[in-house]
């Protein structure tokens, strides 16, 4: 059981001349939320992108359920969802179309499920509008709908509460709590506090290089 979840050992990452991650390690077992904290430019996004296998660390490794994630990236990616600074929405497609595509790449979802997810994040009224016309907070909410539909054990969230109002932030907290209760793992990088019960949160603090 000790290896269930996401672990990282001694990650060192360089971006050009900058040594961004210096021996970073963490353990996020099932049911735990890892809060990646640190100032702007401390490497929070780099850590998240390394954790999901987009970036290759110079040394160190990332383990998912005890296996190096680079051994089988597609399988690892099938069990995670990553939401970066900007949710990947096509400006010319509506919120619904974007969501249908995003989730459709992973699993079949019916209209009812999509509608319910959009309803829950408060997007029912504007789900037919092109993403171009949505505010940053509304785009975030579409991403939250994707989170709730993806049914994957690992969530990697970059600044999940940015641009959201108080109610939206609470929604983030509720979604994370649900994911943890299901036995999922959440990595959230933010310099804000996470709206999640403190007992379930572990912290890793990144310092400026």
């Amino acid at each position, binding site marked *: 059981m000790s290896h269930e979840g996401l672990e990282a050992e001694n990650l060192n990452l360089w971006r050009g001349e900058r040594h961004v991650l210096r021996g970073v390690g963490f353990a996020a077992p*099932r*049911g735990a939320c890892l809060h990646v904290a640190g100032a702007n430019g401390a490497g929070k996004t780099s850590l998240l992108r390394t954790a*999901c296998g*987009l*970036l*290759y660390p110079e040394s160190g490794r990332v383990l998912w359920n005890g296996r190096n994630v680079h051994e089988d990236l*597609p*399988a*690892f*990616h*099938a*069990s*995670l*969802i*990553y939401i*970066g600074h*900007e*949710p*990947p*929405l*096509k*400006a*010319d*497609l509506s919120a619904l*179309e974007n969501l249908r*595509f*995003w989730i*459709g*790449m*992973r*699993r*079949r979802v019916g209209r009812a499920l999509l509608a319910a997810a959009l309803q829950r994040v408060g997007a029912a009224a504007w789900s037919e509008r092109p993403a171009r016309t949505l505010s940053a907070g509304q785009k975030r909410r579409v991403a939250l709908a994707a989170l709730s539909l993806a*049914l*994957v*054990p690992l969530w990697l969230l970059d600044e999940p509460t940015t641009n959201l109002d108080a109610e939206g932030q609470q929604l983030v907290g509720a979604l994370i709590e649900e*994911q*943890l*209760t*299901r*036995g*999922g793992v959440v990595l959230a990088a933010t310099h804000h506090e996470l709206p999640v*019960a403190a007992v*379930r949160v572990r912290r890793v603090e990144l310092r400026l290089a």
Partner: protein
Amino acid sequence: MPELPNSTLAATAAEPRTTGATGEGTSVLEAARLVLLRDLTLAFRRRGQLVQPLAFFAIVTTLFPLAISPELARLREVAAGVIWVAALLASLLALESLFRDDAYDGALEQYALSGQPLTGLMFAKTAAHWLLTGLPLALMAPLAALSLGAPAGAVPGIVASIAIGTVALSLIGSIGAALTLGIRRSGVLLALLTLPLSLPVLIFGARASELAIQGASYVAPLELLSALAVLGITLAPLAAAAAVRISLE
């Protein structure tokens, strides 16, 4: 909070691949179809950009009579070459935007992290590019050919050669477009990378069109062209996927 027993975990969140076995997960083919449909939908929501390569092709083929001579007999000799160079450049013109929007709005990252083989998705994107540029070019080529003095009997050969040749061009181009991701003002570099690699396609394609205009059998070059397209289909998406992954690093 009490932890849930393991069996519940497995049923809900733990193994999406096992749920896939029950028919819920998305197969590569379905994912590729989604990418293809999405690119086509997006293209049709911006019809203005859709006709640009075609207009470019029409203008370039119009320039040659003005630069050489209005005599159809003289134009007929160079018609195959003119059509092919124009098609090559028109296909190149549309390449720059193949991955640009996807890189900008995070879609490439989404593809790379979708758990689907990126190679398959790259193939779907290239297929969309061909449907939006190669196929319309092939359908428009007869007009250009006739205006350059080619006989009507040459039309099937020209259409076939452009249709097959642009498959290979789109595939080669997808590699170039993926390699130049993240480079500012990449247009000239993209041409420098793509055009030398496109040379065999140009040679076989122009030869097939030329034979068609002469009324001879164009089967041999068309077969070579098809061989290039098949080779491209097997190898180019791999290279493009590798380049896209690197661009995300």
